[in-house]
């Protein structure tokens, strides 16, 4: 039985084209970039070409792309780098309670290092409060950071409005965006977004794990966070796997060669799942917004009266991989912080199921998953003291 995988927002299956593109850099061309000798020069050329390709899809310049060992590295280099580079201008940073853990843990670190952080609240669909943003800005605010697509709810933040608020702040506020969930799912144009730095990653778009990139606008300064010998990149010294960079580029190629089709495929799958679930399973709630303000690959439902770890286990036994926001499935035994931050109660969080799609998912898979999920829901509700069968 082939496994049905619907957890693509965590990581996705590397495309065969990606594996093929990497092969030669593991076997024959296993070199680092360098000057004057042919091996190094050849890799130089490869990196230049890949930067050309990646910069093109986000409307950046090739020399504004910097490879890293993943999205988390890119976020760290940007956030700590901006904070340290501009600390003389002020010590205030703004982010929100619904940001990705990369941003929140960096914010906590900076707080411990003497910065002040304002955490904006979000509404019930996960949109950050823009009035709060306006009033949070101080003369000492040096940075605003946000997660463009929420990793739990699929909420696409109102980037245009955010940009306008920052543009009218009266002084320069550096703008970092985590786009790991957004890249390859929604159009991203760094000029239109008005960001100074932006983090993306390969393995969420069928590229290899362990490689990402940081966009850094020309002229923006970053304090050096990681120190060592420059092999591939100034911002992340040491080795960065060239094969992974080649694979990343191929993943970009297959995602963006017909980007409208990529988006439509994901949106159609989500629409199909939402429709099927709402037709088939009673007493469920969609978490996050409906329609265009939701990323096309993300569906998150709470199945009331039952608990998500039990549901995911039963689906797993049927060969289906999905995610849950239940505390029982988390390492720290805590309910999902995003769902709690947007006002869901414990039961809604424990019973939340997240389905995230990629290019290999099909409507047939969705039909099978909903059929199994409907059976599991009936079975677990029969056991649940919270479910009143006379309803």
């Amino acid at each position: 039985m082939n496994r049905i995988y619907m957890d693509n927002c965590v990581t996705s299956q590397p495309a065969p084209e990606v594996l093929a593109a990497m092969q030669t850099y593991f076997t024959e061309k296993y070199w680092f970039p360098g000057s004057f000798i042919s091996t190094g020069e050849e890799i130089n050329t490869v990196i230049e070409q890949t930067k050309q390709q990646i910069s093109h899809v986000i409307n950046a310049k090739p020399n504004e792309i910097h490879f890293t060992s993943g999205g988390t590295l890119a976020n760290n280099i940007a956030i700590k780098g901006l904070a340290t580079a501009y600390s003389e201008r002020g010590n205030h940073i703004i982010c929100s309670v619904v940001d990705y853990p990369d941003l929140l843990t960096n914010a906590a670190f900076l707080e411990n290092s003497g910065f002040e952080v304002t955490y904006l609240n979000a509404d019930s669909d996960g949109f950050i409060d823009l009035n709060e943003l306006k009033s949070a800005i101080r003369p000492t605010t040096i940075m605003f950071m946000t997660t463009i697509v929420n990793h739990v709810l699929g909420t696409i933040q109102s980037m245009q409005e955010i940009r306008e608020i920052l543009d009218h702040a009266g002084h320069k506020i550096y703008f970092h965006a985590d786009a790991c969930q957004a890249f390859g799912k929604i159009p991203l144009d760094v000029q239109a977004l008005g960001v100074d730095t932006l983090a993306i990653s390969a393995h969420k778009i069928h590229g290899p794990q362990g490689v990402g990139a940081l966009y850094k606008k020309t002229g923006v300064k970053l304090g050096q966070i990681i120190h060592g010998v420059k092999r591939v990149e100034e911002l992340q010294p040491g080795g960065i796997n060239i094969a992974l960079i080649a694979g990343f580029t191929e993943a970009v190629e297959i995602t963006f060669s017909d980007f409208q089709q990529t988006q439509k495929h994901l949106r159609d799958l989500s629409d199909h799942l939402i429709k099927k679930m709402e037709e088939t399973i009673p007493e469920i709630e969609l978490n996050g917004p409906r329609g265009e303000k939701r990323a096309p690959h993300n569906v998150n439902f709470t199945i009331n009266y039952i608990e998500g770890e039990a549901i995911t286990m039963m689906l797993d036994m049927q060969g289906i991989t999905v995610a849950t926001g239940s505390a029982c499935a988390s390492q720290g035994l805590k309910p999902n912080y995003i769902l709690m931050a947007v006002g869901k109660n414990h039961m809604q969080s424990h019973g939340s199921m997240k389905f995230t799609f990629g290019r290999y998912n099909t409507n047939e898979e969705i039909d099978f998953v909903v059929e199994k999920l409907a059976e599991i829901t009936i079975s677990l509700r029969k056991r649940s003291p919270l479910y009143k069968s006379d309803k």
Partner: protein
Amino acid sequence: MQYSQKVLDHFMHPKNVGKMDAPDAIATEGSPACGDQVTVYLKVDEQSHKIEDISFLSYGCASNIATASIITELAKGKTLEEAKQITWRDAMEALDGLPPVKVHCSVLAADTLQTAISNYEIAHGLKEVPDFSKETIVEELKKIIYPQVGEDIVSLKMVKYVGFTDGEVLIDLNMASFDTWRENVAEEIREHLEKYPAVKNIQINFP
């Protein structure tokens, strides 16, 4: 972290599951806020005090369902006196163990069984409602599992001091400042003690 085959069997095919019509005693422990809730129903023979029938309902994860299932299996056909000896350790053993972070599920299941027995005994005049004292607190603390290792905090000597005066509970815990389970443990303790009407305030101190 992996479940044993026995846990999976009891999770997929739980025994004695369902609401009981006209039970002789009921108990519910836990809450959706804790992430798990178990209800146990008992039918008890008035003469022999044997548990003639037992069933459960569970809101919770796989191990929650499995531990509730096994606890009903262990108690069925036993006298109340015999069933009172069943602990969470027995449930764990019968399931070939649980991952450390899931041990608290077996405590909840055993606890619900014991409360159901106690409710029966009180309703049938077999015992008085017990007074709340420092000993009650210590007994409750023995049910708090440190998720890192799957042992209770009393056995692990994490409880340095327990005090109880005029409804004020004071507990000193020996947990390092970098211990990420501090909050979980404190929350568990509150959930266990807040259900007693005698408890007005709970203060938990860390070094």
